């Protein structure tokens, strides 16, 4: 059995190491050791689901996820709907607590995206819940719930139209008092599809010649709005998401294959483009929307 240690904090900055380890899995069964896990963000959760799926594909057996005895992480994972989404990915030996009942403080539980109906459900759900969080916690205008819903719709459709594989979306608000001195809302999306290079390859690889790869594919979609569809009305989704995230001074990054591209605001320290990451299937999108500060326009 191969043991993969999960870090104390699993989020978009620590998921790369997890993906790299999973891609080294051979035929052996995998145990994800989460006994030291103290925090899992939405990126960590959907990333863990993706990692578990890949581990199952590579080893031929459902991996085990072991969590510590401390109740906080388990309880939070339960409230985020992680165990429901993980059913079928992690196998025997994984303890799946019952989902807590009662009102939820979660902005958007982990939601599998496999059909258009799922996108409608996501939008319906956040329309009911996001208004108060966006206006009271982040200080955005009351109408921002519409733009927020559109962002979610477009990122989920990215899974359906480009991945040709299932994916997950989740969103939650956090108090980043120590990191940023502000509250944030995080949206995380992950799928196990063919990634941007795979999606765009047939239509666009020839013109790039030897330069074609994960970086050029991400730049083509992220910066230039290229899509695999010949229809000139396509390819607006990511452009419009970027525009709205910029207005809110947010961070957006898209990891696909071996590369990550990002619009990085001043308050965050990360390169706009990373390459040479461990190859991992599909696409992972991370959006962080910070609380509005008074001196912003």
């Amino acid at each position, binding site marked *: 059995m191969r043991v993969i240690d999960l870090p104390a904090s699993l989020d978009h900055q620590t998921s790369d190491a997890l993906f790299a380890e999973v891609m080294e899995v051979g035929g052996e069964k995998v145990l994800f050791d989460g006994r030291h896990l103290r925090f899992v963000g939405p990126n960590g959760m959907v990333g863990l689901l993706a990692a578990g799926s890949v581990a199952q594909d590579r080893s031929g057996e459902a991996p085990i996820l072991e969590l510590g005895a401390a109740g906080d992480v388990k309880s939070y994972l339960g409230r985020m709907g992680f165990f429901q989404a993980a059913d079928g990915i992690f196998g025997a030996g994984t303890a799946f607590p019952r989902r807590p009942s009662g009102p939820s403080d979660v902005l958007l539980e982990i939601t599998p995206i496999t059909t*258009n*109906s799922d*996108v*409608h459900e996501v*939008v*319906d759900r956040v*329309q009911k819940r996001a208004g108060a969080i966006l206006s009271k916690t982040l200080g955005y205008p009351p*109408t921002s719930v*519409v*733009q927020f*819903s*559109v962002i979610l*719709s*477009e990122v989920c*459709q990215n899974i*359906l*139209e480009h991945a040709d594989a299932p994916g997950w979306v989740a969103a939650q608000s956090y108090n980043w008092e120590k990191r940023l001195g502000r509250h944030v809302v995080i949206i995380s999306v992950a799928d196990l599809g063919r990634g941007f290079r795979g999606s765009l390859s047939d239509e666009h690889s020839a013109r790039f010649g030897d330069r074609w790869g994960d970086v050029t594919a991400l730049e083509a979609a992220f910066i230039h709005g290229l899509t695999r569809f010949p229809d*000139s*009305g*396509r390819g*607006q*989704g990511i452009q*419009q998401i970027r525009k709205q995230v910029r207005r809110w001074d947010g961070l957006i990054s898209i990891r696909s294959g071996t590369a990550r591209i990002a619009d990085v605001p001043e308050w965050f320290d990360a390169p706009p483009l990373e390459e040479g990451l461990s190859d991992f299937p599909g696409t992972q999108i991370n959006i962080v929307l910070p609380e509005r500060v008074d001196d912003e326009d």
Partner: protein
Amino acid sequence: MRTEPGVVPISIDVGHVLRRSAESLYSHLVTRPTGRAVRLAIEQQVAGSSRTALSLIDLSDVTVMDFSCADEIVAKLLMRFLEEDRPVDALFIFRGVRQSLHEPIQTVLERQELLAVAQGSDGCCSLMGTRTEEEEYAWTVLEGRGRIGAAEVFEVFPGSHHREALHELVLRRVAFASPGDDMYHALSALVGKESA
């Protein structure tokens, strides 16, 4: 509802079309398949007209419209009825366009270099999409007057660039020139006040 002869008004409540054409109780215009289903249902209604259809596309019940739906329900709908092989002649006014819908609609119109007439809840019309300054001016003058007779055009628009712009507005289907009465009509003037 009062209209000019030769133009048939068709009111289409998009919220109603959405509930009828999509397979479940969706309340928002999101996802491309949903937008496509709504567009096809609208096209079917408009195509049934025996004369030039003045299609009043009512978006009052729509809160969320994503860019995929805006592309289908606004851009592709307009493009279909600008094509030479369009099923019927049709003009469009998008009504009840609340602020939250402005951006997706404006974005898809600009992307396809289209022009559309939008009517706010106060009944006032405005242009959305890509246009020249001359087109904006000619449209605003026509909108203010409601109609301009062919004989008046030289007086109202002494400059040829504005007359050309007026002609372009007709081609782009945001103004109407009735073949029989030598008259340019603002689309809003084709609709009776009682329907605004």
